[in-house]
């Protein structure tokens, strides 16, 4: 499983990187941590002519926390997020979810931007971005643009990025300290891709849920929002009855595929189970 042959460049600026990609006729690929893409190449499922390594480009990493929310540079590694104690305060859903990403060594190289660009529906970051309505800053040959997370993911391992576009950062909107949240995923072993997962957050006003956002992992070709489950909770108290209704709605609205690890029927039920557990922990967690 040796890698196929390719050229390699590690430019020192974004402009250079974009130019290299643009000149590559679609067969040049940017590489961040490489923790997902190098295995793809090892299986020779991708054979790019040129890898443009983003590691020498300044200002692509870093985590900025402000009133506007949390901005994570594309080259920030999983471990940078887990090491940043401010996040537990600023957006606790993030570290809770990222704790499920792969293993120790992978987290030392894998990046947030790489995960978004890889667009694996079984990964955590794409669903987090979608659920929290994050904005993705992108730079390409035609200039900068901002993509809503919902517009980034177009299919399994497919995005709306042009071949010359590079993700610069992901920006999560402001997170009210009183926000309630939950994250549950289930995988066959520690660090494996989830058989299903749920990320959610909502505001609570006068005992009722508002702005309910529920995203699911690994039950479709892309990360998806569970709109029916959201509707089942919006404006209601999060209690046994509404949780049950949301669970049923979640299982009802997904149409997952079966594979060698789990049947479709199981995944459909599992997403409801996990939603129930995530809601219970969200509701049960002490209000801050």
């Amino acid at each position, binding site marked *: 499983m040796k890698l196929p042959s390719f050229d390699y460049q590690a430019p020192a600026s974004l402009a250079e990187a974009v130019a290299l990609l643009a000149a590559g006729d679609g067969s040049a690929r940017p590489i961040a941590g490489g923790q997902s893409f190098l295995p793809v190449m090892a299986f020779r499922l991708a054979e790019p002519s040129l890898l443009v390594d983003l590691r020498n480009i300044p200002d692509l990493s870093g985590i900025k926390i402000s009133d506007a929310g949390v901005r994570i540079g594309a080259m920030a590694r999983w471990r940078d997020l887990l090491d940043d104690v401010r996040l537990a305060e600023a957006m606790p859903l993030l570290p809770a979810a990222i704790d499920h990403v792969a293993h*120790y060594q992978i987290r030392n190289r894998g990046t947030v931007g790489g995960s978004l660009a890889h667009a694996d529906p079984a990964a955590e970051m794409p669903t987090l971005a979608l659920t929290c309505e994050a904005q993705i800053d992108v730079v390409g040959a035609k200039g900068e643009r901002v993509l809503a997370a919902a517009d980034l993911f177009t299919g399994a391992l497919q995005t709306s990025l042009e071949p010359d576009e590079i993700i610069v950062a992901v920006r999560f909107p402001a997170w009210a300290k009183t926000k309630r949240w939950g994250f549950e995923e289930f995988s066959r072993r520690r660090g494996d891709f989830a058989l299903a997962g749920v990320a959610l957050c909502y505001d609570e006003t006068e005992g009722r849920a508002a702005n309910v956002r529920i995203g699911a992992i690994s039950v479709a070709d892309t990360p998806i929002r569970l709109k029916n489950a959201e509707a089942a909770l919006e404006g209601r108290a999060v209690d046994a009855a509404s949780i049950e209704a949301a669970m049923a709605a979640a299982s009802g609205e997904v149409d997952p595929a079966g594979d060698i690890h789990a049947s479709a029927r199981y995944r459909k039920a599992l997403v409801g189970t996990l939603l129930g557990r995530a809601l219970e922990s969200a509701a049960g967690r002490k209000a801050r």
Partner: protein
Amino acid sequence: MAIGFEVNGRAVSVDCAPRTTLADCLRHDLKLTGTHVGCEHGVCGACTVIVNGDAVRSCLMLAVQAKDAKITTVEGLSMEEGLTPLQTAFKKHHALQCGFCTPGMLTTLHALLSEEPHADEDRIRDVISGNICRCTGYITIIEAAMDARSSYQSGEGDKA
């Protein structure tokens, strides 16, 4: 491509094709065969080395990406005669059988305990879950790591 980096305290320069992984470069260009390759797709952890203080999978890193890095392999944990406290604990607890996963276990645990000498059993299990061992069932590996913590707590973790 010609690149230079530091391995086990020694400056080296190699000429590698871009597609050469760090693992293959260490093993075949630099003859540091203590780093083992068990899957070449980033799952088994046998190829773990320490790059600038972080444990990483050397099959998921290109040699050209190691430019100017400081790398420690299992050989770098064994510079002097004798065994380090972690290696001694592995022997004492029978934390290895065929020995193939062992270099990756040692580098991973060395990186972890250097940074987190008070890591508890759950943390150690969690970290080592990225390294596959087919022989031991892991229980003795966890015992060895727990036993070796005291040497890291006293700053003697890398002394043979």
